């Protein structure tokens, strides 16, 4: 009896690691693409992928923090667009570059703060508050720009900051920014009381309240982190595109949520990590890159992102069912 269950237990223990499935998927994807297309596994392509994944990675980091506390942030795509627009505008109206960049990030964090206040003070469900923010921020950007892209903010330094010019080879400034963001979020989640409170709040909101966790503050800060990350992503994308179109960041919330969930964050809260967000963003970016290299029309991009998100939640569901079953089996064996 025990001999039969051992492999299945080992299997489920493997599955219990939230990132295991994603890493497996990643390895299969890389191996298959390398075999099929010789120009996939090259240094140049690796540079391309890393420079493209920065946006989703930053958004996924913020989303992971929000998901850990048990919330969700649908507004990141719109927040990214609006903060990039306002930041670019301050530069065109004569402010120094640093002020423009700081404005971009500050607007992101501020919109996150409003999300947090709507959720904690007005008691709105998180997806409604952030869905409203999605509509309002996008509408504000369209209204304010009149549908015309913002241009003329590209100071010479902005080319370096956005990674358009690459003085240090393929390790661009955005990649360095992303690495810093990953390390900071990882440290905050693992080694600070904020991080422990966030996991506690997500695992059991009721227990968190009873043990004196400042629930409202933890939530508001989580949405601010998500907004800030969206601001940083917007700042880089404004430079990368050299214009801020009113549609900038449209639909990025799907990619961000997909990346976070692929990386092991759960909708119920209490699970997720910065490392997982990296893996999730890698899976999405490499898939996008694979589509590109395989010569499939980029119109398919959105279909594939949605498909990957669906696959990720199905996988998560199936693995949690297997975990629950093997746990039941183990209890039954222990009782026998």
């Amino acid at each position, binding site marked *: 009896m025990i001999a039969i269950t051992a492999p299945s237990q080992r299997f489920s223990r493997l599955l219990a690691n939230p990132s295991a499935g994603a890493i497996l998927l990643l390895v299969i994807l890389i191996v298959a693409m390398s075999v099929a297309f010789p120009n996939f596994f090259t240094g140049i392509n690796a540079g391309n992928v890393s420079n493209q994944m920065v946006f989703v990675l930053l958004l996924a980091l913020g989303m992971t923090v929000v998901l850990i506390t048990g919330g*969700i942030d649908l507004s990141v795509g719109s927040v990214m667009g609006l903060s990039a627009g306002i930041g670019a505008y301050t530069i065109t109206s004569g402010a120094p570059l640093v002020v423009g960049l700081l404005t971009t990030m500050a607007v992101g964090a501020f919109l996150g703060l409003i999300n947090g206040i*709507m959720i904690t003070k*007005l*008691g*709105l*469900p998180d*997806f*409604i*508050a952030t*869905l*409203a*923010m*999605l*509509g*309002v921020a*996008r*509408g*504000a950007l*369209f*209204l304010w720009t*009149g*549908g015309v892209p913002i241009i003329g903010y590209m100071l010479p330094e902005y080319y370096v900051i956005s990674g358009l010019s690459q003085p240090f080879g393929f390790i661009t400034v955005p990649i360095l920014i992303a690495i810093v963001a990953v390390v900071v979020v990882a440290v905050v989640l693992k080694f600070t009381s904020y991080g422990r409170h966030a996991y506690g709040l997500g695992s059991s909101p009721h227990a968190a309240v009873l043990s004196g966790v400042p629930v409202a503050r933890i939530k508001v800060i989580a949405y601010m982190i998500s907004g800030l990350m969206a601001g940083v992503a917007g700042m880089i994308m404004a430079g990368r595109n050299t214009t801020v179109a009113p549609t900038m960041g449209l*639909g990025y*919330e*799907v990619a961000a*949520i*997909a990346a976070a*969930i692929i990386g092991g964050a759960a*909708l119920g809260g209490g699970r997720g990590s910065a490392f997982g967000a990296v893996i999730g963003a890698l899976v999405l970016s490499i898939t996008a890159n694979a589509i590109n290299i395989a010569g499939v*029309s980029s*119109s*398919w*991009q*959105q*279909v*594939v*992102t*949605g*498909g990957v*998100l*669906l696959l990720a*939640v*199905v996988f998560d*569901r199936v693995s949690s069912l297997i975990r629950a079953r093997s746990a039941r089996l183990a209890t039954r064996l222990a009782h026998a």
Partner: protein
Amino acid sequence: MSVRTRLTQTLAIDGLPVAAALALAVVFFSLASPFFLTQENISNLLTQSLFVIILAAGMTFVLIVGGFDLSVGAATGLSAATTMLVLMNGGALPLGILAGIATGMAFGIINGFFIAVMEINAFIVTLATLSIGAGALQVLTTGTQLTGVSLPAFAWLTKGSILGIPTGVVITLVIVAALEWVLLFTTFGRTIFAVGTNPRAAFLAGTPVRRLTFSVYLLSGTIAGLAGVLLASHLNSVQPGLGQGYELSAIAAAVLGGVSLAGGRGSVWRAVIGALFLATMAQGLQLIGVDPLWFSIVTGASIVIAVAFDRAVQQWVIKQLAAATTKRQIFDDSDASASVSADAPTTSATRSSVRNTK
């Protein structure tokens, strides 16, 4: 105290606040612009709001069962595209309509399967199908112009008129009336209230929760397919991004009409009033010279205000109720009050208890 109580009770009547808001908006805009109450404008307003009205009616079912459907906008857009595709390739009108409705149903079946059978979070599943649908529309419209169907019967679906009323309005009225009838007078309609109010209790009482949940998403998808057919007839052309944001308007309309996001509460006509309110705002703001781009801000803000308002009223009612309950408990130890003091009673329960205590 008694005036306050009466005010609270009035505000707690579902649908009254939004109906009042609609009336106020109509009065305001007809005073602000002489063109608002013209027949042409009203007919325009109705024709443009048909799609959101239909989607909001479908969304009501999903919200009542305690679910969520973000994919309706994408489903509408893709259904419009498949209808156009069939008609452009010489398919007969019934075939085109069928293609559109079948596309919507496909969304419903996929959503229903993952949500009801696999028990995955509704929100993520429909977000994924939104992305897939919007992407598929992009794929379909790249390289091909979906436009220029010259079937008179197809155009008649939204542009014709029956007894002086635009056909689209008549079709919408029929759909809305049918859905309200299903919700109020069929076993299906009554049991989805039970599932939304308390899924566990409904399951223990022998309700086929899974099958009902599946049916509700199938219904919402089918309705989105119908809306897509009408939208294709209205525009006679389909671009990428069509239907984008309709889910936001449909949810806003339902929520404005007092359909609870927590499930178990709502009705089709109230969602329709919510949709009419949004349409009036859109049309009215445009008439008095406000940029139509304000509309998505108005929609977003009205969701926030409606939900916050609803919550405030509910809490007020519960507080009043708790006070009344304690008073009554002094006189008799009625067991009915015990269930009321649970932390999240539904409104209908709350309201009937308010009446009982009176």
